């Protein structure tokens, strides 16, 4: 799988010091490798953004359940009442 695991080991600090130094030297000499490192870093950001979106959707579903399901409505009503006091 090309260099994907090596780059991951470097990005996550799983490389021994000597190997990391050698890898950094390769990055300086190899433009394609340097691009792959950058793109892999962006890929981790894409995964994070996607994951946050998904977890937010799950949280939203829980909130909607609290609003819609009769057994939780007492709880939500108490919250709503808090905002009438102020």
């Amino acid at each position, binding site marked *: 799988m090309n260099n994907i695991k090596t780059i991951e080991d470097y990005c996550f600090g799983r490389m021994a010091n000597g190997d990391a130094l050698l890898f950094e030297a390769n990055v300086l000499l190899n433009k394609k490798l340097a691009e792959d490192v950058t*793109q892999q870093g962006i890929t981790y950001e894409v*995964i994070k*953004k996607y*994951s946050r979106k*998904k*977890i937010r959707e*799950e949280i939203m579903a829980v909130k909607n359940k609290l609003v819609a399901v009769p057994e939780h409505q007492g*709880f939500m009503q108490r919250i709503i009442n*808090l905002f009438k006091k102020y």
Partner: protein
Amino acid sequence: MAESNNRFLTVEMREAFFMALYKKAFSPVAHYVARMGGSLDEAQDIFQDVLVIYYEKVTAAGALTIVNEKAYLLGIAKNLWLQHYKTVHKNLPLNEYDTEVTTDEQLASGKILLYLETAGKRCMELLKAFYYDHLPVCKLAAEFGYSGTHSATVAKYKCLEKVRDTVKQNSLNYADFIE
């Protein structure tokens, strides 16, 4: 990987986790936001952000045990409220309102996420489970139907490569994805 991440294996387990946190901590957070002059919608938005932050905290490798969950969540909420308050009440000159520009890059990153959510959904779920939920590979293999940890690891790297190729094809950069 934290063994406690077994608590977050499925959507149902995460739902139970978030539901318990709502019951435990939404009331004090809402009370605080109301006292500070905020609305119910603002309290809900803040609390959702609190839950995302807390989820990331407890699923992180080497996560510490939080002794007083309610106080911890309220602390995060207070910080978020202060940030929100500063943003909302910043005195901006009128000509700075409604001038948010959507760049071509932002449109591209939105398109990529949409594409990955549909065409690459299984891959993205696998990557989320590994890199975000921090599930142990053995659990991940079972959950996604791989024969063992080696197959799951290979599949994970293949998915990572697929997403990296998509990033490359669309010439995306960090600024498109940093929140």
